[in-house]
């Protein structure tokens, strides 16, 4: 092949955020209130529905659960699914 250019088609190394930091797509930022979050309140691994439902896989299944804001796109699914209503979507400050 005469084309040595690695970039003749779109490709990316499989990695967290292979396209770069997509967190800047976000308009609304999920903030977890650990005072309401079930695993934190019960002090044992439980619930983690935010981790399960997040389509980007950016929530950890740890107690407390943590969100990787470099890649969280702000879709709000975690807030919708949280049974303890511990997550609020807060407008990103401009």
């Amino acid at each position: 092949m005469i084309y040595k250019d690695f970039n003749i088609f779109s490709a990316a190394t499989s990695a967290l955020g292979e396209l770069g930091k997509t967190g800047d797509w976000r308009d609304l930022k999920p903030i977890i209130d650990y005072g309401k979050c079930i695993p934190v309140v019960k002090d044992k691994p439980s619930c983690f529905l935010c981790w399960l439902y997040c389509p980007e896989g950016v929530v950890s299944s740890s107690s407390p659960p943590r969100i990787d804001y470099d890649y969280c796109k702000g879709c709000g699914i975690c807030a919708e699914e949280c049974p303890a209503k511990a997550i609020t979507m807060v407008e990103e400050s401009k």
Partner: protein
Amino acid sequence: MSKAIIMTGNSAAALAAKMCRIQVVAAYPITPQTSITEAISNYVESGELKAEYVRVESEHSALTVCIAASTVGARAFTSTSSHGLLYMHEQVHWAAGSRLPIVMCCVNRGVGAPWSIFNDQQDSVSQRDTGWIQLYCRDNQEIIDTVIQAYKIAEAVSVPVMVCYDGFVLSHTMMPVVVPMQEQVDAFLPPLKTSGHLDTANPRNINPVVFPWRRADSQGVMRDGYMEIRYKLHSALNDARGVITQVNGEYARVFGRDHGGLLWDYNANAAEILIVAMGSIASESMPAIDSLRAQGINVGLIGVRAFRPFPKLEVREKLAGAKAIIVLEKAISYGHDGALACELKAALYGSAVRVPFHSYVAGLGGRDVNAKEIEAAITDSLKQIAEGNLEPPTHWLNCRTE
């Protein structure tokens, strides 16, 4: 020794694909293409061809299988016609955008509605802007030779190639074909020594979404945006002009047959009236040219072999001495002109060639176009030009238009 065998265009295409030692084939039956893949499945079944024959539920899947195979470096082949080609349209774009050297035969057939199983070139012409190289064949010899050349071209520029030829007129018509020797084909077209776009040592995600702008990936490497990647496809098609010519020349040296590269001509040197056509309507025009020349009319023929990339400069050069141009073609850009006529007019804009220009759409949906009718059309156009009708709208040959 190479030997001549009497065979159909579809047999020639299947044999060529086998001689190219294709590794993966996937196709879905559609008239008039089906007998290519039937022949290939026989080759695979009998063990003559060591290839993976993947049965699929549609043309969209057929090309998708070829895309996957080509992505890992396999030599992949498919063939289709008409609605099959239209059904895979999305993947036709995808194959080109992924820069995969797939070869596909398009056995030209009219598209519905209304239903037609018969020949014209509307199917492949409608895929003009998908980023594929399109080569049109005039006879069965050219089909076998062009499929072999097509892999060489595709693999050199990383662009898929569509080898187009007229349904029934060529696909199901027997004519003598000189079959190249396998050793010569092997030397001309060595195995593809590549793992394609994938590499187990360096795993990558192919075709993730790209942004309108360039952007650093997770490793901080700048990646092209959509426009850069598309610009590279466009540049590759432009570069393919030289490659098509070069491969044709190399083929002629090895196999002794020169199909002209981007263009071919017949009695065109110093001809004042130039007929331009593509595919079997061009070969059908040859006896018409002979007959007109016998009547003292200085007419010649130019056959367009590469529709994409379009040979703009070569066309200008060939038409430089023309006093009149008449285009015959089996496709139309509805609401404008014949498709080839549009291309030619655009190629001539800004050149010194400003001559009467007639164009004919003919043989749509398989309506017969024979040399006598072509001769009559040319004679009629010359009469109209003499009367001052220099650039009328596209004529519909042999069609009731009142």
